[in-house]
């Protein structure tokens, strides 16, 4: 709690509410929950005064606003920080309004209330719009959607996203993949990452997207997988490709350069 709030607290006895506070004391708690934020509270105070926001009597509103939030604090309401920020803003505007206008050759000085009034106007638009939407018919409150039971006999239709040809293709790809468990005596030097990068590039020049397993050769075994993976990482690191892994766990190599050129 800041010091000014404490100071004011000493002057206001919560049980003796100031006479110019517009909210009935017993309704305070309800009101607090009703306000959606400092702008809403400010709007409420302005409306109670029955003045136009553009004639905002900043001194009066500021005093009421500060009294109000002091009171809420004294009643141990948890106040959102924004309420205090608004109090500070109001106090600042109030003090500016009290100063004599500074002579300025270039242009007339801006009314310190303008920014606040703009915010209030903007807020008011959506406060009203929210009210308008609230008063529209809502499903299951104001109108109802009809639905009927399903027939006793239900034929569930199966829709399958593959056929026997797809299955054969998958089988073929599985068989062409190197057996990771087999150990092939292939020297690492025989497989160059650079060559593999060129190989991947050559495929990507024809198609944009390449399944990782398609970069593998059966005879290369585990080492081939490592080399292909290193090549793919190298390409990704240099920003030539994106590596994509979707739910199927298959890694895809997606060209970034070729795609741009083509597209």
């Amino acid at each position, binding site marked *: 709690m800041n010091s000014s709030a404490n100071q004011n607290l000493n002057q206001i006895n919560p049980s003796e509410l100031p006479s110019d506070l517009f909210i009935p004391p017993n309704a305070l708690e309800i009101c607090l929950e*009703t306000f*959606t*934020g*400092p*702008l*809403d509270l400010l709007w409420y105070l302005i409306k109670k005064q029955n003045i*136009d*926001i*553009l*004639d905002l009597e900043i001194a009066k509103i500021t005093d009421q606003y500060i009294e109000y939030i002091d009171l809420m604090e004294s009643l141990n309401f948890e106040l*959102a920080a*924004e309420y205090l920020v*608004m109090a500070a803003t109001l106090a600042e505007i109030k003090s500016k309004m009290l100063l004599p206008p500074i002579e300025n050759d270039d242009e007339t000085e*801006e*009314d310190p209330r*303008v*920014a606040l*009034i*703009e*915010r209030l*106007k*903007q*807020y*008011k*638009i*959506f*406060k*009203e*719009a*929210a*009210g*308008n*939407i*609230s008063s*529209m*018919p*809502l*499903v*299951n*409150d*104001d*109108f*109802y*959607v*009809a*639905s*009927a*039971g*399903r027939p006793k006999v239900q034929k569930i*239709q199966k829709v399958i996203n593959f056929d026997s040809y797809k299955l054969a293709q998958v089988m073929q790809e599985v068989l062409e993949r190197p057996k990771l468990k087999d150990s092939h005596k292939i020297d690492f030097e025989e497989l160059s990452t650079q060559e593999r990068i060129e190989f991947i590039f050559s495929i990507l020049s024809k198609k944009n997207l390449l399944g990782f397993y398609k970069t593998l050769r059966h005879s290369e075994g585990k080492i081939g997988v490592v080399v292909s993976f290193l090549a793919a990482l190298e390409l990704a690191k240099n920003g030539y490709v994106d590596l994509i892994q979707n739910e199927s766990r298959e890694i895809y190599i997606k060209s970034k350069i070729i795609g741009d050129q083509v597209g």
Partner: protein
Amino acid sequence: MIKLDKSLINTIEAFLLTAGRPLTVSEIRDLLNEKEESIELGKIRQTLGEIEERHRNTSLCLSEVASGFRLQVKDELSESLSSLWSEKTRLSRSLMETLAIIAYRQPVTRGDIEDIRGVQVSTKIIRNLLDKNWIKISGHRDTPGRPATYVTTKTFLDDLNLTRISDLPELPDIEQEDQTIINTDQAQTG
């Protein structure tokens, strides 16, 4: 004019009453075409007209909303049904303000909403609106932190019995009222 057989009317009526969601004309076509040879969209529209006609004296009416067509209970019977649904939906004003800002200013970030409302938007409100399927994340804005941008959904429009976002009431034009005062007060806008 093609003669409409009753079985087609009944099938589409049954689709509408069991789908559990509104159906568009082309969705209905696809559902029908899984079974039979192609049926034209025009014929489906015509059949929907027949369904509307058929229910002239029943409790139902055909309604078109954002996600398609559905059968609803006629408005005049709503009052009698309220005993079945005694709990009215209670939506807080904070939630409605947030929803209104998303609806009229979409796509917006949480920061945009906070700028207008002057107060933090609680995660609870956003979660609540997402749960109702009234809003969804449409993307991320290219600003620091890449905040999510929110838009309203078709379900939001469906639940308000609307077809498109422009069916919402126009934004209140408070400038208009205030115009005269602004002019006399000072000729400048912040």
